[in-house]
């Protein structure tokens, strides 16, 4: 089964041709990054998959269903650039939100939230308010919330964009571990070339006006233990992937 299947996806906002003929397939458990300059439609593409926008043309299948069906069935979890936590709820209650919306009993969601907070290393903060947490910790809560219904697809729209570099690298390692442990496929929108290279099985490079996929490049997602990511960051394969993505972006921009 595939997590996402896009065929000839098209989207216009009035005069602006945001997306043009997008073909992309994401396998179950695969980590795919979308990278490109501002206005290339990468966020729009993610939002179409999330059923937050409607495609103008073409076919979109998420977990083999229409995006609307997939959204209702909670086939995906989503994390945005802003953590978007509800500040009047505790950290645990924020993680419970998707389960509460879908009518899971209180005891069950308590247990699931505790499990997820353990997973993202925030078990001690279950009763805290989001305002008491740092930006990186808030983003970890948002990821735990996205993972709460055990989705087979995780959609992430520049989730680490507002974090400092040190926090960002730690979060990347964390995300890879989570993706591996949950077996979820990840579609990851980013501006950062190294981030795309180190996390992904495949890096999808896009160009603007109209938004198109110009090239798909193999990334160097570490396979084994979590410590591997630091080795990858110093490996030749990593620098080759960065160079390939950078050249592809330059080509796309130059044309």
């Amino acid at each position, binding site marked *: 089964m595939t997590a996402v299947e896009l065929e000839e996806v098209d989207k216009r906002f009035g005069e602006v041709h945001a997306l043009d003929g997008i073909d992309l397939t994401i396998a179950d458990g695969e980590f795919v990054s979308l990278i490109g300059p501002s206005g290339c439609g990468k966020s729009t593409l993610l939002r179409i998959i999330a059923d937050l926008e409607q495609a103008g043309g073409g076919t979109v299948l998420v977990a083999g269903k229409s995006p609307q069906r997939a959204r209702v069935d909670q086939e995906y979890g989503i994390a945005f650039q802003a953590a978007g936590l509800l500040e*009047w709820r505790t950290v645990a209650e924020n993680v419970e939100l*998707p389960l509460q919306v879908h009518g899971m009993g209180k005891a069950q969601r308590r247990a699931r939230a505790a499990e997820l907070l353990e997973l993202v290393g925030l078990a001690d903060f279950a009763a805290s308010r989001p*305002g008491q947490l740092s930006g990186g910790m808030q983003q970890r809560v948002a990821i735990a919330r996205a993972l709460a219904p055990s989705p087979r697809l995780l959609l992430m729209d520049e989730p680490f964009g507002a974090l400092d570099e040190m926090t960002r690298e730690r979060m990347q390692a964390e995300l890879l571990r989570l993706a591996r442990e949950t077996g979820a496929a990840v579609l990851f929108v980013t501006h950062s070339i190294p981030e795309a290279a180190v996390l992904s099985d495949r890096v999808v490079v896009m160009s603007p006006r109209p938004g198109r996929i110009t090239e798909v490049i193999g990334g160097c997602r570490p396979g084994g233990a979590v410590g591997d990511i630091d080795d990858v960051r110093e490996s030749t394969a990593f620098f080759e992937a960065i160079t390939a993505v950078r050249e592809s972006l330059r080509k796309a921009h130059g044309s």
Partner: protein
Amino acid sequence: MTAPTDERHGRRPGSDGSAVRRNGWVAPVAFGVLVLLVWEGLVRLLGVPAFLLPAPTAIGAQIGSHLPVILETAAVTGGNALVGLVAGFLVGVLLALLASASRLVAELTTPVVLAGSAVPIVALAPVFTTMFGSTTEIPRRLVVTVVVIVPVFVSTVRGLRAVAPVHADLMTSLAATPAQFARFVRVPGAMPYIITGLRLAAPAAVIASIVAEYFGGLQNGLGSRITSAAANTAYARAWAFVAASIVLGLLFYLAGLLAERLATRGRTTT
């Protein structure tokens, strides 16, 4: 993320700012005492007639000798203000919830409520007195209720509309129903706005409750005592009831402020 930093900066321990804040009551109290002294001095020196302005000591003496009556009437007026405040608050919030849930209700209620803010509502007091009779508290409570509805409605509607786009996207992605959206995001997110509406309405409730008494009805509140004392040339006593009205208004204001502080405590935007 800049707001908390600014706030922390402003409250840096040991800085001049925090010292001023901690002793913030000294200056106004000193000023108030000074005003009373000057007032007393001027009244004595210039021999100001009592109907123009009685001396603070004369007013104080009246407060002392009429304290039981003052407390009794203040309780009646305060009680009316409180009942009207609670009723108006509930109606205002309910109307705002309906208006935010349905476009039809919004189009029906919003102009009416906003037009209501332009009506001098205490002018309705005599009409209400005729409608409900002069032996019940209902007319005055009704005036307070109508006065309170407007600010509560306006700020609640504003709060219900102020949903962060990321929260709207989140709830859509979770396939939440409109009722769930209201329960989990809209209403709790609007709480600070709703409480601000209550804070604005609280002193207005006291004013409405007192002024409504000027237009007949039961003669057991502060407002009616002020008019009857003034009519009987007991000017210092009239001022004693005015002073009690001021204290009552301040009590409602401070209670509203406290409620607002509690409701917005521990909130920082993310």
